[in-house]
């Protein structure tokens, strides 16, 4: 039987570091291995013995790309453990904070990291000459996301203003209103992005996914909601570990995650869109409809359009909050030192982020568990590659490798949450069927 092996030593345009190995026997994919490391596990150990009030700052440092997500899951889990109820204005601000991170993250991925795949460029630098306006739009959008994060976080990187019970400092109404002209421009720019991403060419590849996302009765999910799936899952965050399990695979330091009794699942934009389309604001729903994007979207390559729709949502939601915001009576409520345990799930740009904390009567953390979205998608990425690589048997080596890398980028993996670069290598035996 003919055989070849695809190995990617360094996958570009993902956050972090790792490698990919695919072994093919004839037209059958014999093996797929995503090899990566898992730094957050070390942060879990680092958290033990610290006061719960330190958790938002410590966990924010797991990832330079999505620190807000780590802060949000941390404060919600701890507040649940303490039975703390936050001021509605603080709740709004946290939602705005998350919108800022979504704008930063989705802009970076849609325009700078994923679009070059579809237009046939090695990277955004090669693309910038012929598509200058696209890149300049991305830079302006990214800056608007940065502005929100800086305003609410106290600084652009490693935000420090998030506290258990609220914020250390909250903005004035005037400061939020100043964001509006930029945000109104951003809504229009992201609407344009939905249109042009919908015009890209997509491979014919659909899978029967279990989509997992938060669902909230009144809004598109960010900070709250029950965890649901298209296969009947409907649970509280406290039940997460009863339904999902992590396991170690030999080829990687990263843990992989599965739904107990079922297997891999997909978290992130496709899952949120498919399970919460009816909760998108009208402007985002209409943009999706014009782009002929209706749930369920089962082609992961089309996630670039879904991210653009979520960009419309994040910009429109930020506008709404900026208009409606009235400062809270106090930036945060006092929180007691007492024993407790709490879990929370929030929607990071890449998908659900689970945190669990238990602490003693002095508020010192006894145990912490963090399951980042990229870890939850790892098994699903391998499953996609197993199916997709089989379609690439007749493709030349270079193009097949490129396509496999693109299939990984569909998930916008933040391997910083799990490691550094991804490496893909393609080996071929002498009797390879390929040129």
């Amino acid at each position: 039987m003919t055989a070849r092996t695809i190995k990617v030593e360094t996958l570009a345009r993902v956050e972090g570091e790792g490698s990919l190995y695919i072994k093919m026997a004839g037209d059958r994919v014999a093996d797929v291995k995503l090899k990566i490391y898992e730094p957050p596990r070390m942060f879990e150990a680092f958290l033990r013995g610290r006061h719960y009030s330190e958790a938002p700052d410590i966990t924010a440092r797991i990832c330079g790309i999505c620190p807000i997500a780590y802060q949000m899951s941390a404060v919600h889990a701890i507040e649940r453990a303490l039975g703390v109820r936050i001021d509605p204005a603080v709740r709004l601000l946290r939602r705005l904070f998350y919108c800022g991170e979504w704008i930063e993250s989705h802009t970076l991925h849609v325009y700078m990291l994923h679009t070059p795949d579809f237009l046939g460029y090695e990277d955004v630098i090669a693309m910038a000459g012929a598509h200058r306006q696209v890149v300049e739009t991305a830079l302006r959008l990214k800056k608007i996301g940065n502005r929100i994060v800086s305003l609410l976080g106290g600084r652009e990187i490693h935000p420090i203003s998030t506290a258990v019970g609220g914020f250390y400092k909250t903005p004035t109404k005037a400061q939020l209103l100043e964001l509006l002209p930029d945000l109104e421009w951003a809504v229009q720019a992201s609407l344009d992005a939905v249109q042009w991403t919908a015009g890209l060419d997509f491979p014919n590849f659909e899978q029967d996914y279990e989509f997992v996302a938060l669902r909230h009765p009144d809004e598109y999910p960010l900070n709250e909601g029950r965890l649901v799936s298209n296969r009947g899952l409907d649970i509280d965050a406290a039940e997460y570990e009863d339904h999902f399990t992590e396991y170690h695979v030999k080829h990687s330091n990263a843990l992989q995650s599965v739904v107990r009794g079922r297997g891999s699942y997909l978290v992130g934009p496709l899952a949120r869109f498919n399970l919460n389309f009816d909760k998108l604001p009208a402007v985002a729903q209409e943009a999706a409809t014009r782009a002929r994007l209706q749930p369920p979207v089962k082609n992961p390559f089309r996630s670039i359009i879904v991210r653009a729709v979520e960009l419309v949502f994040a910009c429109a939601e930020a506008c709404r909050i900026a208009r409606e915001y009235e400062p809270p009576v106090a930036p945060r409520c006092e929180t007691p030192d007492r024993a407790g345990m709490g879990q929370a799930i929030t929607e990071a740009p890449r998908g659900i982020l689970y945190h669990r904390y238990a602490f003693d009567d002095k508020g010192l953390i006894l145990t912490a568990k963090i399951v980042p979205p990229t870890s939850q998608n790892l098994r699903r990425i391998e499953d996609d590659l197993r199916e997709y690589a089989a379609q690439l048997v007749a493709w030349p080596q270079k193009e097949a490798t490129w396509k496999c890398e693109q299939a990984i980028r569909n998930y916008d993996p933040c391997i910083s949450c799990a490691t550094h670069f991804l490496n893909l290598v393609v080996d071929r035996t002498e009797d390879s069927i390929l040129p």
Partner: protein
Amino acid sequence: MTTIICCGNPDRGDDGAGFLVAKQLQTFGVPVKMCSGEATSLLDAWTGQANVVVVDAVRTGDPVGTIHRWAATEAAFPRARFASTHGFGVAEAIELARTLGLLPSQLCVYGIEAGQFEPGADPSAAVQQAAVTLAAEILEGLDCAPSSQPG
């Protein structure tokens, strides 16, 4: 006026090299912008500035703590040699800025050779020493014009 931008993650071992240099410079009252090193944030940080110094951790295979110097406005940046924990980072920012005409008129990039990026780990002793040396060098020549060759 020189704008100094220090990049990296202080909680990822030697990726904290830029922050160590920043701390040194700040003790002398020199203003420093901190940046994760993510490309678009870096572009934003130097927009409108004529004379810019960027400091980050690099991996080229040289001994840990080696200080590298590039005059980024003079030649294409050695992207393949410039690796850090940022997937879309300093090297990409420089080449994207070159394409878009957004490079400062003078851009000096200093890299400190990194050995490990362990989460929660302290920077290596060699990186800590290099940060002190590099901060002194930057202080001495804030209107620097380093060689385009790695040091």
